[in-house]
């Protein structure tokens, strides 16, 4: 899951080298913590949170395949 979020985010931002993702797993619950360059926050969140919402839906499609639930937090 980590690699998928990295892939999606790095293509979106201005500073791909500043993107980090931490993945934690608890049973079938996966938590992804995304960090980006401060200037890129708006790009991953989008107007009215549209981009972040879409990213979460796409991640869930990938996770659902293995019966996992995924949660993605964007951290400052």
């Amino acid at each position, binding site marked *: 899951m980590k*690699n*998928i979020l990295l*892939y*999606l985010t790095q*293509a*979106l*931002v*201005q500073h791909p080298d500043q993107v980090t993702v931490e993945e934690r797993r608890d049973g079938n619950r996966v938590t992804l913590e995304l960090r980006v360059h401060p200037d890129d926050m708006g*790009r991953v969140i*989008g107007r009215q949170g*549209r*981009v972040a*919402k*879409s*990213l979460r*839906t*796409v991640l*869930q*499609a*990938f996770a*659902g*395949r293995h019966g996992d639930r995924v949660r993605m937090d964007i951290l400052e």
Partner: protein
Amino acid sequence: MRSAEARAKTVEAAKEDLVGILGVAESLIRFEVLEEPKPGLMGLGGHMALVRGTAIAARAEWVKGYLKGLFQTSGDEAVVVVRQEEDRLQVSVSGDFEWFTGITGESLDALQRVVNSTAQQAEGRGEVEPGDLITIDIGRWRERRYEQLEKEALELAAQAKASGEAIPMKPMSASDRRAVHIALRDYPGIATTSEGEEPARRVVVRPLASDEQASSPERQEMPEGGPEPHE
């Protein structure tokens, strides 16, 4: 990204040289004029134009690479075909992806929004050719879905016309609603509108009074993933 510099008497001539050097169409090169040509005095002290050209990815190639790369990350092989339609770039992904589309197509709409946002950002960085909205279908999911919706819409239109009553459909996503509006666009004596608030927004199929028919109102919706959906 590939780039090159060329020196010539004029900026235009340098650009022409760069088209030859980079081997791609002029529309796929981002030019930066590094030095304007300067005429010298009696052949002395002047210099020629210096232009840098960077090859940017054609939109179709870009989206193909992006989607292949995405599914490769999850260990899947995707076959991606891109077709330029009238006002959109239609992308079809084939492979074993039923797990992705699911039943509602929600993830397909979400992927489409992510791809269009990413394309917009990449355009801003001069990495990809600007162009039309990208629409994505996976495993012909949309194609089948829209055929089904069209059939349903035509049945409801016939019913609405026969009864003279407006018929609300069940709540649907923006891309599904758009498919219904398009299916009934030219249906005589019928108008369609979208009513209510997301996520309960729905299409209403209504018969037109005979005096309305000359100028049937038409409501077009932006497809999902549009740069600025107006809803």
